[in-house]
């Protein structure tokens, strides 16, 4: 066994088992001693049931068979997120995973659309997006091989039961040598000289020592905060929602390949369709609504009977001041919390894991690795934060005290400049690092009625008739491709990912 190879993961939710699975896969051959401590008495949060397309690379790297994974986690395919009532009450749009239309002479498609729209008669931008049209019709198939063709230039993710995903990864990890210890941590011992955590003590008296501890203990931050007092950057100033109530219910209607986020008076409500049930939750700002009222709003809008008692969650948006401190790396909710409006929770776990693997210490922890990890994860969190905040401020809603608060909010300069550039001419300020690419910004800004005043003047070289024809061709091809796409429930069966009984429930009307 090499040096620096005793790893202890604290917490066995989605973050804990994703970390265990990835480390066991990457480092099993090196004889790592991987231990995961979890307690059945401590529940997991499991807010991350919806994912981003990057999750597929994570699963592929583990060698996971997609149909088997989907069957065992009750997963559905996801083509995007539908936002309801965000721009105005009654509005809705889908933020798709993929580009709109096709570029023309290297000009972004949305610029073609803008020109046509400003001259009247372009229809919805959504009509030029295959994943949106397919999603609206409840259809799904895998992308084709040529990413430059309509019907192939999209990505997809999953919606799954996070508890089942954790179980699935637990089997995977234990099969690769991860040792699971059932127990509750009651104490930690610090190295008097370095301040590192030497070992953790469990309620049954046993101790677990390790070279590196990975804190996946959720909001509590058992090691990163309770022991090391790392500190937390509070981002409530920008994203003030601080509570959620979650409940699963029976599914009704066709199995939809998208997550829904419906804006409410003091927050928003999620709907995540799985094969065996629908996940629901209401994220809200407690200054503007009581817990009882928030729960009432959620329970009274379920599509089917509730399958459990509603679960209350408390959180503070922000990030740990250091994601990696001494010999503790925080991954998941212990690292920070950003509301799951754009399904980033599991993505940020994935980013934490892949970055840790890339920077994994050799003989001892080097401050350069710690610096680099913290730098990269900080950027990830910040860029997600700005994108989430966009949803709250790109709105015309003033019908409640929460929406009026956002109307008057002074934005971070980086976001204000992005909005200004967009409003002026539909220009998206680009960056290279960060999860949300320009089409995502276009989707939200246009979806929430931020109509640019101008457009890229290079589009003016196109004759209007030529432009019209180009757009019509793309829209017709998009509709055609979508109409040839099977319904998601049928595709799941054909793909081998359907679980045995739930589909019958899910397709009931």
């Amino acid at each position, binding site marked *: 066994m090499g040096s620096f190879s005793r790893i202890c993961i604290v917490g066995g939710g989605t973050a804990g088992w994703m970390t265990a699975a990835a480390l066991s896969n990457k480092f099993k051959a090196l004889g790592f001693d991987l231990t995961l401590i979890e307690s059945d008495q401590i529940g997991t949060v499991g807010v991350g049931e919806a994912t981003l397309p990057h999750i597929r690379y994570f699963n592929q790297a583990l060698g996971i068979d997609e149909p088997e994974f989907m069957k065992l986690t009750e997963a559905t395919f996801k083509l995007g997120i539908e936002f309801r009532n965000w721009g105005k009450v009654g509005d809705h749009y889908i933020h798709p995973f993929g580009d709109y239309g096709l570029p023309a002479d290297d000009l972004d498609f949305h610029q073609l659309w803008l020109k046509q729209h400003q001259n009247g008669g372009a229809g919805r931008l959504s009509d030029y997006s295959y994943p949106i049209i397919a999603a609206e019709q409840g259809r799904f198939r895998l992308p084709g091989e040529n990413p430059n063709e309509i019907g192939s230039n999209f990505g997809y993710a999953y919606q799954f039961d996070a508890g089942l995903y954790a179980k699935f990864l637990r089997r995977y990890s234990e099969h690769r040598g991860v040792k699971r210890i059932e127990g509750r941590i009651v104490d930690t011992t610090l190295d008097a000289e370095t301040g590192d955590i030497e070992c953790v003590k469990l309620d049954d008296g046993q101790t677990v020592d390790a070279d590196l501890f990975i804190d996946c203990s959720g909001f509590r931050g058992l090691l990163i905060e309770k022991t090391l007092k790392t500190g937390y950057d509070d981002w409530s100033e920008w994203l003030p929602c601080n509570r959620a109530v979650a409940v699963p219910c029976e599914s009704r209607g066709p199995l939809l390949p998208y997550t829904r986020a419906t804006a409410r008076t003091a927050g928003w409500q999620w709907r995540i369709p799985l094969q065996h049930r629908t996940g629901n939750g209401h994220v809200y700002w407690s200054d503007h609504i009581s817990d009882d009222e928030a729960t009432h709003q959620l329970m009274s809008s379920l599509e089917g009977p509730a399958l459990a008692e509603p679960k209350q969650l408390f959180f503070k948006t922000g990030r740990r001041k250091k994601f990696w401190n001494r010999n503790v790396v925080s991954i998941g909710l212990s690292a920070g919390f950003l509301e799951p409006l754009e399904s980033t929770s599991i993505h940020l776990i994935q980013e934490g894991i892949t970055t840790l693997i890339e920077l994994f210490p050799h003989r001892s922890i080097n401050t350069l690795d710690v610096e680099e990890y913290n730098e990269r994860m900080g950027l990830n969190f910040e860029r997600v934060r700005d994108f989430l905040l966009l949803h709250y401020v790109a709105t015309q809603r003033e019908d409640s005290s929460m929406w009026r608060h956002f109307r008057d909010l002074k934005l971070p300069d980086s976001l204000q400049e992005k909005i200004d550039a967009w409003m002026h001419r539909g*220009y998206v300020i680009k960056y290279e*690092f960060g999860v949300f690419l320009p089409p995502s910004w276009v989707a939200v800004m246009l979806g929430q009625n931020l109509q640019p005043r101008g457009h890229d003047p*290079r589009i003016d070289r196109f004759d209007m008739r030529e432009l019209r024809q180009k757009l019509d061709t793309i829209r017709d091809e998009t509709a055609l491709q979508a109409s040839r796409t099977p319904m998601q429930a049928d595709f799941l069966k054909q793909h081998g990912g359907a679980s045995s009984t739930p589909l019958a429930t899910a397709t009931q009307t």
Partner: protein
Amino acid sequence: MATLSLVNALGSDHHIAQVNASATPPADDIYGGATSPESYNFLRGLGLDEPLLMLEGRASFSLGTHFRRWRPGQTWHQCHHAPFPTIDGTPLIHHLTRSRTPLSEVLISAQAALAGRFAHPPADPATPLALAEYGYQFDPLDWVRLLDARIETTRVERLKAETITVQSQVAGRTVLALDDDIALEADLIIDATGPARTVISQTGSHFIADRTVNARISRQAATQTGQPGRVIEASEEGWTLKVFPQETELSLAITSPAEPNETLKGFDVELGRVSEAWQGNCIAIGHAAWTIEPLSPAPMMLLQRDIERLLELIPTTAEANTERREYNRRFRDDVDHAGLFHEALLRQEGAMNSAYWKSAAGGEPSEKLARKLRQYGHRGIVPRYDLEPFNNEDWIILLEGLGKTPQDYDRQADRLPEAETQNQLRQMKATIDNLIPRMPPHHIYVAKLKQYLEKKRHV
């Protein structure tokens, strides 16, 4: 290039005029005579496709820049290369570090350049040649002639003047005077006057000077086309660049500036950038906006970025505040990020103790570069910033060339037994070694390609 790009990008309702002022000294030679692989599509968009460049532009191929005796014992080929392959899912560099194998041994484009050979990279990914990337070596005089001829066929109004001056500056709007008496107004003025900065310097944008160097240029005919890449050789006084377009050799010597009592040996160039490349209704591009030494293809890369940025931000209103702010932000990032690459080349321990080298290594070190150097030296990763002009491969080749060796590597590399890693690396090297002698010498390849293109043109 900017004129043609504007003609192509904008509809005919935009009136475009190009003013050539004979009193503005041309400074195109300090672009360095080489493009990077990223320029391929850009040049094609201007109508400068490869057949034209070969047949009428006297271009040759460039696999990179060979640095000779940059410091004692430092000789390497700063080649263009596609993303490095991975071994067992782990980046190549970590396996090389682990097995102490020099990077250059497994770089097809470096080895081909050292052997003076060239062939187009094939589409078949099974051959290592598919990983080679190339730009062009050229004589700016030839390309100016080609561009000029193309512009003649467009709607561009061409004006000639002895001098261009700024006639007035009112509310951020510049009006030009040609030969001191003909007023020229425009919604947008592109200053491409090189280091003279004829217009931008009058708008309130000031030049942030780094240092001054002396540049001395010479051209001589060659009996055959030279190397498939530029050569830079350091000396006590500075360094000399040699560029090998078809049957020509261009030489550019960069030294410290001439002393006041010294005979003028070339011309002095102030290095640095303007504070705002877009000021009022004037946008400076190329050497009018920044001047950096042609140690890499950065000058041509930055020029291309200037033009692309300009096209993306052609203003939609007279005020253009949004466009100006964004243009200047991207301009600063691009120039600063390209500057990091050159800073790494120039700010080194063991630099010669002469005026040029002391000046080149002076100034405030950049924290962004320091982070790259720290991380690379530690474990072979190069932190990246948004939309940098130089890619990961460029940086790794540079840092290896400068003799910086990572102390550690990605532990995932340990999954493969060391003997297997070494075996795979040996195979990579052997494949390259077998392939190189079968590639034609650069001058023969260029000559045969031209014959082929000529024939094709007349079919």
